[in-house]
Every structure is written in C-alpha cells, then in structure tokens.
C-alpha cells in the first residue's frame, strides 16, 4: 500500500473530513487533510455525501431547465419587440428614452429579458472561474534556489498551517476538471455499492474506467475494458473495511495523498488542471493490485505514461493549431512584409517556394519534439547574424525543423531578427535545370541581388551539397558554392541550409561554405522521442486510412524499424511503416479496424523477410520438429543438427543476444561428410530454399586485397559482395566454405562480425549481421579426425586435440573462441553411406518421375552394392555420387535414348547394375 509522507496532516478532531456536526472543524479550520510540498500547502476540501451529490444533481437539472427557459424567453421577448417596432414603425423612436419608459408590456418584457441575459452571463462566467488553474511551473536552473527550498522548515501541525499565507493554500479539489470530478464522485458510488467504509484508490480506478478518456487510453493499449472491470470487481470485494450502519463512505488517506500526487503530476507536466490522465497515472503508479492487473494485459507504467502523453500531444496539437490559425491571419500572404518595406522578388519566386506562406495556409504538419534544435538555430542567428547548416542523416527531421521554423515565423514566435520575414526555400534542382554553370552562377547572383533589395527574406537551402562542383570548367573559374559563400559572408542576408552527415564532412566542412555556415547537428530521436513524434503523426494517418492505431502498433513501428531497417533513420522510417501498416490493416480487415503490433510485424517481415511476427502454431510445430526435418537430408551428424536446431529455436523465440549473429558455427571434418550439405539443409528448411544463402568459397580469398571484394574497395562506388548481399537480405545464412584457405586478415573481419553483428562497407554503411546464421566449414585437421576415430577416441577427445594442436596453424585462439559451437563431423560409416545412397537414388527417381513419368525402383541389394562401391573413408560420400552417376544415371540415359523406356514404364535397378523394365499400360 501507499506509504504516507511524514508531513501529511490528517486532522484527528474531524477525522480528516473538515467538518464537525455540520459546521467547520475548528482544529484544522475546515481543511481536513493536507500536505506541504514545493512551497505550497495542498488540501482537499470537497464534501461528497449522498445528500451533496443528490443536491448537485438537482442543481444541475435546475440549471439546465432555467437556462433553457431563460434562452427561450430572451429570444421570444426580442422577437416580440422587433415585431412591434416593425409593425408600428417605431424605428425613429427606439433611441428616445420615452420609448423605453412608455409602459409598453412588450418593452418591459424585453427589459426583463435583458436582465435575464445579464444573469446568464454572470452564471456562465462564474462557472468557468470556479475552476482554479494550476500555476505554471517555473524552470529552475539555479542550484541555489533548490537548496533554499530544502532548508525551509515544513509546517508539521495545523497551528503552523494556519499562519501560512492563504495564497499558498490550494484546494486541490478546485483544480479537477469536470471529468476528473465526475470520476471522484463515481468512486464514492463504487465504494457505497460495495458497502465499503473508505474510498480507496482501487475504487477510483474502477470509476476512472467509465470515463471516455480512459476508454481511449485503454483502447490504444488494446485492453478489453469490460473484462478488466470484471476482474477489478472480483478484487474489490475483498479489500477495505465494511461500512458501519448509518455511515457514508469517506475518502481514505491514501486517496487524498493520490490527489496531491495528481496535482504535482499535473504541475510538473505543466497542465492547467488535473484530468483523467493524471489520475490514471498516479493511481496505477501507487497500487500494486492495479499494476498486477495491467501486467496481465502486457501494460507497464512506461506504456501507460506514453499513451497518456499521446492524449496530451493530441490536445496540445489541437490547441496549437487553433493558435497558429488565429495568428496566421496577421501574416501577409504575399511577398510584402507588414512594414511594407519589402520588394517583390519575381526572379527568386521562379526558383523557390515560400515556406512561410505555405505554413500560413496550413500546408505543413506540426513539428514535434525539436524545440531544443530550433532554439539553438535561433540562438545562432540572433547571436551573430550567422547562417546555419543543419547536419543529419536523411529522414531524421531536418525538413520538419525548417517547416517548424516557418510555422513559428507565421506566429511571429521568433527572435526579432526573424520577425516580419519570409522563409523562402531555394530549389537547387530548378536553379541548375537547363543552364550552363556560368548561367547558374548568374542566376544565383541575381537571386542574391533580389534578396538584398527585398530585405525580408531568409533563404532556406536544403541539401546544399547539390551546389558543390558546379563550375564553368574554365581556367580559374569558381564553384557555385563559393559564389554563395561569398554572398553570405557579406552578411546582407542569411540562410538556413541542410546537408547529410557524411556529405558535410566530405565536401562542406573544409570548403568556403563550411566557413560561413554554423553547424547544428540534428540527432536521431531515441525510442521514446520517436514514439511521441509518431503519436503526433498518428491522427492524420488514422484520418486518411480510417483506422485506429493501438499503442503497441506505434511502439513496434519504432522498435522494429529501428532494429531491422538499417539504411534509413528514425522517425521517418517508422512513419513510413505506420502509413503502410494503416493501409495494410484497412485492406485486410476493412475500415474502422484497430491497427495492432502484429500488423506492423507482418509488414516489416514482408519487407525484410525476417520472421518478426509472433510464432504461430504451425511454425511452432515446425520448430519443434526441426531435427527430424533436417535429418531427411543429412544422415548422421547428430551433434551438428542438434546445435543448429537449438540456435534457430532460440532466435525465433527471441531468447538470444540481439547484438550478435543468430549463431556462429565452425564445422570441421574431412571432405564429403555433409558439412556443406548441413548448411544447405538449414537454408532449405528454415529459409525456404537451399539457394537462400550467401555462399562464399573462401579459397577465392587467399590474398590480402581480396578483402575489398567482401566489403568493397575504398573510394570505390561498387559495394562489397558480402556486405551488399547481407544488406539486401539480412535474414539469411552465410556459408564460408573452406575458411582455412582464406587470408588471415579476412578472418579478422569475421572476428568483428561474430562479436558485434555488424560490418561497415566501403561506402560507410553499417550492415547488420544480427539476423544471420554464420557457418564456416573447414577441412583443416581432417587426417587427425580420421586417425582419432580409427584409434577409437571419442568425438570430444578428437575435438579437444584439434583445437589445442591441429587448428593452431590455421586459426588464432580468439577466432575459434567467437564460435558458438565447433562441430567435428566424423567420417561416415558404411550403414550411413547406404542411407545416403538411398537418398540420392530417391532424388534421381523423383526427377525421373516428374520429368518423364517413369518410375524408378531400386532393390535393397542394389543400394548396398552401390554404397559399397562408393564408400571411401578418406573421401566420405563424394565417391558415391560418381558411382551413382556412372552406374545409375548413365544406364538410365541409355535406356531413354534408345527408347527402351517410355512414360508410365517402371525401371527396377537390381544387383549388378541390371535394369529390369516393366512396361506401363498403353493408352
């Protein structure tokens, strides 16, 4: 239960009610319960009894009734007066006093109606004024102020509270919104219904669930409200003491304390009043039963807080939209400034868009969570009249910031230097289109000239790197960017430019442009920041697609796009996913549907081919039978199969380290024992096809320079074979065949891949290897394996010997250490070869049947004979393939070419390589 703070005061005389025998309690002066915190004394003074609530209900009804009657009366009296004026042509007389005191009943009635109107104004305005507003929290930067606060002595009894100024005594009940007040009253009803003596936080929580806002919050969280209410009903019956005869439920200390917490929650988040959202947060935070219940629906406090934030963001956006609309009316729509000092810019207008005008007419979406960056830009511009360049990766929100600045310029909520100005976006594409370099430079100079004359233009240049490298090519000709830099350095106008991170370092930082542009780095938002940006965007996407987003969908869009879409950046990639998912969900389940996290997972899975959706029953069955499936292709090698199957299951159940590849395996063994075959099998069983893997024959990478074939040559434009393949298909198997043959430096590259799960290519892109299964095969130490097995050593002992001695010349210990498993493939035994022969023959039979409609049957003796002929302990199953080729495939080919066998015939292979033919039926 909630721990009460030390300075919580509860009047013993009136038991915290503030009243004794219908009058004010003299001990606490009617305050009842209170607490001193943050230089304020909070108390709760609201009487909730059945009688009070009945009275409130009756008053509400009476108010509605009287308001209705008054309104009708006013309208009728006015109409009557107008009718009389028109009927009797009194137009000239209405401005004379005699008309108003003529004693006419109609005039009297109208005067009475005016009095009623005045009374209505009085009532409405009093009702609005009744709601106290929570004072705005001041920003405290100075340490000293905080210390002073701590030093203060806290009032610890009612006598010292009496001496406090009335200004700092706050009745928290007055700061509740109507909805929150209603919830408190409902909590009283809930407690009364269950016959409980005290109103507890749990009662309030039940009451809150009936509100519309809570329905939105829990709807977004995907909680079935009805079911939760039923569960709460079961919980509530066992808590709290029962109501005594003739008594009414009263507020418990815990609940009053929660109201105070609610006040500070609202105060800290700069809200004007305590609403359902604040109550929901503090109640859930304080009560373990509620938390336990929410966990059942996979809702933790963080999620709840983010959804409450969502409510607030929507409200904030609505208010800001209204404010912008009101202020936009004052902003001129054309090229002219309000001071009429500007000059028209017809030439510039040909190559640009007026961002302030677009913002004025509501063309831009609101810019969220970038206040800090915008303030930094303003500081630079205001401080030194310097031009600014925004540096950040694409999709991070550079354009959104520029649009946000345009919106603030419309509201004139900008430093003086930007007031009454236009933000004009210069389109580089239009500027350079259809002109030679010298013409482009001329254009730019003319534009600068216009800007100088206009005097009210802030130039915005997005992707400014497009200006670099445009020269006429003649001797001593200068670059277009240099022309702009020269103009900017003269200081008669300034610009806000933007560029991508990589490009800035490469082309701009050390150029003349770099010298005149002050750098502002725009970072990718963190997960919570991105979620809140998406919450701000959700409304428009919901409206367009007629769907509703659950919180899970939003958070999954951010988390999964962050994890699996590596080429792009937050928040843009998550917003794109959101748009796509909204469309996808609406198409799948129709309009009005709720977009859930699983929809997002499905879209991301389709895009990346990585299984990120929840494991369904079919897949779960498949995962459990993985070994069985793999053994259909790979004979023996139990250890390897078990290890791989376990790794795949762990990956799919997400019980693994997410920052490394799914698994790194090294398969050791002589040739032909099934190492590559195992990899192919994994690819077929888990990735859909045996060709769905990246196979690198490491014997092709024997020199140091071949590393560039893997990751791309420095300063080259073509990407590396490995990095590009994994970038395009991040969920795959990478097979490094015969790894001992590659150059040692290449092994170092894989050290990093195995440890960090990423690799940077020549173009500076980080390629994600965390969804890759890395299998390396090696023949190193094969003789030792064969000798060991011959000597009767166990596989474990052979492995030990290999790692300690045989592999040392090929691999460094740290390289071997990175593998999750080193599997020694033992040489195949004769029965295993027989099984393999059976599999190979079955494959040939299947091909024959599919292509020619001929059935192949092989007798047991024939299989044994072939296996015996193809068995060589030194070469594993490889010679078997040759034997089958010679004795079976060649024989069948002859039969087909000589037309001895035809469609529907059956060929039986017997001992000695004889083919017996059973003719099929003739059509």
């Amino acid at each position, binding site marked *: 239960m909630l721990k009460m703070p030390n300075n919580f005061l509860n009047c013993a005389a009136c038991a915290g009610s503030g009243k004794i025998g219908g009058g004010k309690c003299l001990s606490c002066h009617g305050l009842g319960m209170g607490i001193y915190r943050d230089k304020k004394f909070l108390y709760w003074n609201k009487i909730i009894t059945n009688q009070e609530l009945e009275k409130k209900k009756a008053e509400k009804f009476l108010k509605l009734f009287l308001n209705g009657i008054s309104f009708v009366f006013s309208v009728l009296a006015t109409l009557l007066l107008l009718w009389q004026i028109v009927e009797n042509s009194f137009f000239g007389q209405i401005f004379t006093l005699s008309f108003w005191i003529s004693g006419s009943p109609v005039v009297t009635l109208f005067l009475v109606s005016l*009095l009623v109107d005045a009374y209505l*104004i009085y009532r409405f305005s009093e009702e609005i004024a009744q709601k106290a507003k929570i004072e705005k929290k001041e920003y405290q930067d100075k340490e000293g102020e905080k210390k002073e606060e701590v030093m203060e002595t806290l009032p610890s009894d009612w006598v010292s509270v009496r001496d406090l100024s009335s200004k700092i005594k706050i009745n928290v009940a007055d700061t509740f919104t109507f909805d929150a007040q209603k919830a408190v009253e409902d909590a009283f009803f809930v407690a009364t219904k269950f016959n409980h003596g005290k109103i507890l936080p749990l009662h309030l929580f039940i009451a809150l669930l009936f509100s519309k806002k809570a329905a939105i919050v829990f709807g977004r969280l995907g909680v079935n409200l009805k079911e939760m209410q039923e569960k709460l009903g079961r919980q509530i019956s066992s808590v709290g003491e029962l109501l005594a005869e003739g008594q009414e439920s009263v507020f418990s200390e815990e609940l009053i304390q929660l109201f105070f917490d609610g006040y500070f929650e609202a105060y800290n988040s700069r809200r004007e009043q305590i609403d359902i959202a604040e109550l929901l947060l503090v109640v859930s935070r304080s009560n373990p039963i509620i938390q336990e219940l929410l966990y059942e629906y996979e809702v933790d406090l963080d999620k709840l807080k983010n959804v409450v934030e969502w409510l607030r963001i929507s409200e904030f956006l609505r208010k800001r939209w209204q404010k912008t609309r009101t202020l936009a009316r004052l902003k001129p729509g054309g090229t002219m400034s309000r001071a*009429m000092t500007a000059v028209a810019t017809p030439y510039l207008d040909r190559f640009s868009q007026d961002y302030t005008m677009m913002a004025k007419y509501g063309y831009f979406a609101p810019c969220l969570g970038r206040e800090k960056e915008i303030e930094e830009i303003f500081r630079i511009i205001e401080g030194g009249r310097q031009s600014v360049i925004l540096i950040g990766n694409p999709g991070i929100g550079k354009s959104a910031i520029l649009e946000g600045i345009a919106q603030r310029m419309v509201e004139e909520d900008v430093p003086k230097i930007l007031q009454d100005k236009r933000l004009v976006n210069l389109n580089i594409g239009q500027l350079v289109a259809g002109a030679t370099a010298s013409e482009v430079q001329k254009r730019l100079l003319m534009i600068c000239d216009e800007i100088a004359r206009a*005097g009210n233009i802030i130039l915005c240049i997005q992707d400014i790197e497009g200006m670099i490298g445009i020269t006429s090519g003649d001797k001593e000709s200068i670059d277009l960017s240099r022309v702009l830099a020269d103009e900017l350095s003269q200081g008669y106008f300034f610009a806000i430019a933007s560029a991508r991170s990589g490009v800035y370092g490469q082309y701009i930082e050390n150029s003349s442009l770099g010298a005149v542009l002050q750098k502002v780095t725009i970072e990718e938002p963190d997960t919570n920041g991105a979620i809140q940006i998406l919450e701000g965007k959700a409304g428009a996407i919901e409206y367009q697609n007629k769907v509703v987003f659950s919180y899970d969908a939003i958070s999954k869009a951010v988390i999964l796009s962050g994890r699996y879409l590596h080429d792009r950046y937050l928040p843009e990639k998550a917003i794109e996913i959101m748009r796509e998912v909204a469309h996808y969900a609406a198409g799948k389940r129709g309009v009005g549907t709720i977009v859930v996290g699983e929809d997002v997972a499905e879209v991301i899975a389709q895009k990346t081919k990585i299984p990120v959706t929840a494991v369904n029953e079919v897949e779960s069955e498949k995962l459990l039978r993985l070994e069985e499936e793999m053994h259909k292709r790979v004979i023996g090698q139990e250890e390897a199969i078990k290890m791989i199957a376990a790794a795949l299951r762990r990956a799919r159940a997400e019980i693994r380290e997410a920052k490394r590849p799914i698994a790194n395996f090294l398969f050791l063994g002589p040739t032909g024992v099934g190492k590559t075959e195992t990899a192919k099998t994994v690819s077929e069983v888990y990735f859909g096809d045996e060709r769905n893997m990246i196979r690198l024959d490491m014997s092709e990478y024997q020199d140091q320079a071949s590393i560039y074939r893997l990751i791309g040559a420095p300063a080259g434009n073509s990407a590396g074979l490995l990095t590009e393949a994994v970038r395009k298909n991040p969920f795959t198997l990478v097979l490094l065949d015969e790894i001992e043959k590659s150059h040692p430096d290449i092994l170092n590259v894989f050290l990093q891949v195995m440890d960090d799960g990423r690799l940077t290519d020549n173009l500076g892109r980080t390629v994600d290897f965390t969804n890759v299964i890395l299998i390396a095969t090696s023949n190193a130490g094969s003789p030792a394996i064969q000798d060991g097995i011959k000597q009767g050593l166990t596989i474990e002992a052979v492995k030990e010997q290999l790692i300690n001695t045989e592999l040392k010349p090929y691999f460094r210990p740290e390289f071997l250490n990175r593998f999750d498993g080193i599997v020694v493939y033992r040489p195949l035994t004769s029965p295993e070869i027989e099984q393999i022969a059976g599999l190979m023959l079955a494959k040939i039979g299947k091909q024959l049947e599919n292509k020619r409609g001929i059935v192949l049957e092989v007798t047991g003796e024939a299989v044994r004979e072939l296996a015996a002929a193809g068995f060589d302990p030194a070469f594993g199953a490889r010679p078997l393939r040759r034997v089958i080729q010679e004795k079976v495939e060649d024989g069948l080919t002859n039969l087909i070419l000589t037309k001895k066998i035809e469609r529907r015939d059956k060929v039986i292979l017997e001992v000695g390589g004889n083919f017996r033919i059973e003719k099929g039926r003739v059509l």
Partner: protein
Amino acid sequence: MAQANIGVLIKSILQDKAKEILYFPFWWYGKGFLIALNFLWEKIRGMEARLGLKIWAKNLFTPMFGQRDFAGIAISFFMRVVQIIGRFFILVLWMILMAGLLLLWLGLPIFVVLGIVINLVA
C-alpha cells in the same frame, strides 16, 4: 423520511439560489466589470495588431518597397504618415466603440431596472 430529505434538499438549493441572486449585482460591478474590461482591452489590442500601427510607426523613416532614392524616401514618409493617421483614426474609433460597450456594461442593469420599475408603475 424521504419527504423530509427532499424538503432539506429544496431548502438548501433555494438558499444557494438566493445567495447567488443577491451576489449578482456585486459581481456585475466588481469581478464581472474587470472581466469585461479585460475582454474589451484584448479586443483593442487585437485591433492594434491587425492594423499594425506599431510596425508602421517604427518604420516611419524606412522607405517603402525598397525605394531608397530621395523621392522614394520622401514619398514613403508621407505615405506612412497618412497610413499612420488613417490607422490611428480607425483604432480610436474602435476604442470609442469599446468604451461605449464598457459604459453599456456599467449602465445596463441600472437602465433596465429603472425601465422595468417605471414601466410597471406606468
């Protein structure tokens, strides 16, 4: 019992209503007057913002449309003076209107009550 309760309820509501009605004139000339004053002041400020009088005054010597030659500056100056006078005149008219509304606020109850009394007597 129930009837007694309803009686108490009605009594309590009527008491509250009576207090409310008695407070009405005090509100009208006290808190209500301040609210009306604030409302009308905001309207005046809104009109000033729309007319941009401060901006015109601040730029009195700044040439209009970037015409920095002598003729341009001279014409601008006179044009701005005319604009400022014209805009100021509109603002004054607006202020008079607002002041009228404020007077209406102050005089309305007296006028209405007197009117009703006289009419009833007549």
